[in-house]
């Protein structure tokens, strides 16, 4: 270097020495700002990957899902756990198993549970005898041109052939929505049948396990009934008007509670014994029904979307974390080996 200033010559030498050290080490020294940038990029990449994995998992693409999304096996069946007291009518005899007096379905149009005992219940393959799962499915199908009417009719036929009925039906020009209720044991069969009616655009199957809730309600029902028995006995022994009124009040309350529980049980039984399939059909070339845009609707959807993305990321992180730890360990070992090699 051609300068008469010694300081600059020294700094020139120092810089060259730093350059040589860097080249010898073979490791690109990260610049002061690029390290955080790299970390940020890595963080973003991990989050995106986690989101993708999470979305894949949620859509059923990877691994098992215990939430009851699987299409087979978890159905409780129409006669799941029905007691020995018969199929219909709110028989209030105490103490006959858990499911002693549950009526099946709202009104007379639904199939009655089979009179099986809880002990030898053999409904769905692999499901525990007491399990109660509410199964729902939503499917969007595109049918060929000019075939909407025929396919819509075929969907109704498929529902009826599987012992189900149409709960709700809505049609517009060459498109429509059907809400089908079918016995839980025919859920998969019905789905198979409607799937063949066109090209599946969207399909989502959900299962909500309400066994714990069901058992809890059953226990509360039993307690309520025992209490009612006691109160009835007390009523017989009441000698004064005041005693009679007090016991009567307590009895009324207990009766009301029992009826509420029975109502909830009937509802659960209906939901579990009959699965719900929402079927959207549209002809090819007809645009999917667009939800009427509204601000509350938009907020609701964006909030749901946000929660969905976060959920997907959390699920994805759960899947990726062990892999990331292994990767980090490998990287650490590799860096150490590199550093040892670089050290003269």
């Amino acid at each position, binding site marked *: 270097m*051609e*300068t008469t*200033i010694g300081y600059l010559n020294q700094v020139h030498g*120092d*810089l060259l020495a*730093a*350059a040589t050290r860097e080249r010898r080490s073979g490791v*690109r020294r990260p610049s002061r*700002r690029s390290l955080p940038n790299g970390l940020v990029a890595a963080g973003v990449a991990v989050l995106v990957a986690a989101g993708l994995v999470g979305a894949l998992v949620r859509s059923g693409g990877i691994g098992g899902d215990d939430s009851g999304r699987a299409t087979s096996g978890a159905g409780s069946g129409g006669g799941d756990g029905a007691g020995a007291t018969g199929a219909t009518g709110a028989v209030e005899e105490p103490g006959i198993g858990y499911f002693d007096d549950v009526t099946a379905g709202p009104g007379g149009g639904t199939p009655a549970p089979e009179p099986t005992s809880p002990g030898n219940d053999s409904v769905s393959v692999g499901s525990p005898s007491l399990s109660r799962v509410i199964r729902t499915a939503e499917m969007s199908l595109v049918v060929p041109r000019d075939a909407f009417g025929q396919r819509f009719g075929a969907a109704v036929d498929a529902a009826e052939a599987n012992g189900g009925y149409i709960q709700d039906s809505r049609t517009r020009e060459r498109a429509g929505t059907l809400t089908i209720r079918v016995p839980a044991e025919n859920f998969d069969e019905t789905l198979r049948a409607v799937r063949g009616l066109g090209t599946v655009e969207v399909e989502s199957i959900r299962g909500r396990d309400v066994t714990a809730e069901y058992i809890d309600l059953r226990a509360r029902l039993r307690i309520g009934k025992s209490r009612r028995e006691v109160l009835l006995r007390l009523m017989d022994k009441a000698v004064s008007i005041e005693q009679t009124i007090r016991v009567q009040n307590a009895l009324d309350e207990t009766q009301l509670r029992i009826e509420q529980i029975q109502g909830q049980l009937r509802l659960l039984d209906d939901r579990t014994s009959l699965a719900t399939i929402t079927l959207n059909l549209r002809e090819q070339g007809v645009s999917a029904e667009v939800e009427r845009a509204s601000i509350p609707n938009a907020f609701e959807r964006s909030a749901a979307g946000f929660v969905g993305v976060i959920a997907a990321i959390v699920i994805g992180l759960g899947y990726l974390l062990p892999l990331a730890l292994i990767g980090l360990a490998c990287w650490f070992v590799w860096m150490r080996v590199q550093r040892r090699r670089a050290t003269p």
Partner: protein
Amino acid sequence: MREDHDDIELIVRSQDVPEMFGVLFERHSESMLTYFARRTLDAEAAAELVAETFAEAFSSRRRFRDQGVDGAAWLYGIGRNLLSHYFRSGAVDARARRRLGMPERTVNDDDYDRIEELIDFEAVAKGIRDALSDLPEDQREALTLRVIDGRSYREMADALGCTEQTARARVSRGLKRMAKQLDAKDSDAPTELERERWKRRSAT
């Protein structure tokens, strides 16, 4: 062969061949020393600022992207940041040199003399004189009383027949104007406009 490369090529190539950065130092260190010396009027601080500027530039050269802007402008951009840090804190930053493991160097007596030659006090004095003469009458008078004669603001107010506050304002405005003029006259460094242009380009 080295001389064939322009500054941008040197910076880009030094990303793979670190030693190439030395050529950049040979090319610009002395003019940068002059640039810092004329601003700090302190030989030691100027020398340290040069070392730190190149150390910082060496550390961050991988972030440099060839967008057709002057490589020297990039160097001076780093230098200016360090200079303003020096003016704020009163000390030259040494983080980049420490990071690179560069030893602390001291400026010897010979270097002091040579750096002061670079400062060219006569030129600086002339610049100041010119800048002072370019000021409006009231500001020049106020600056002369305050800086050259060392009068207090109260005395200045009496001499100028104005309030202390007005005297302060004239000194402040005069100093700002002079600083701007002196800065514009320095041909070694990229102008404010060039620096802004470089910033905008690197941001895109």
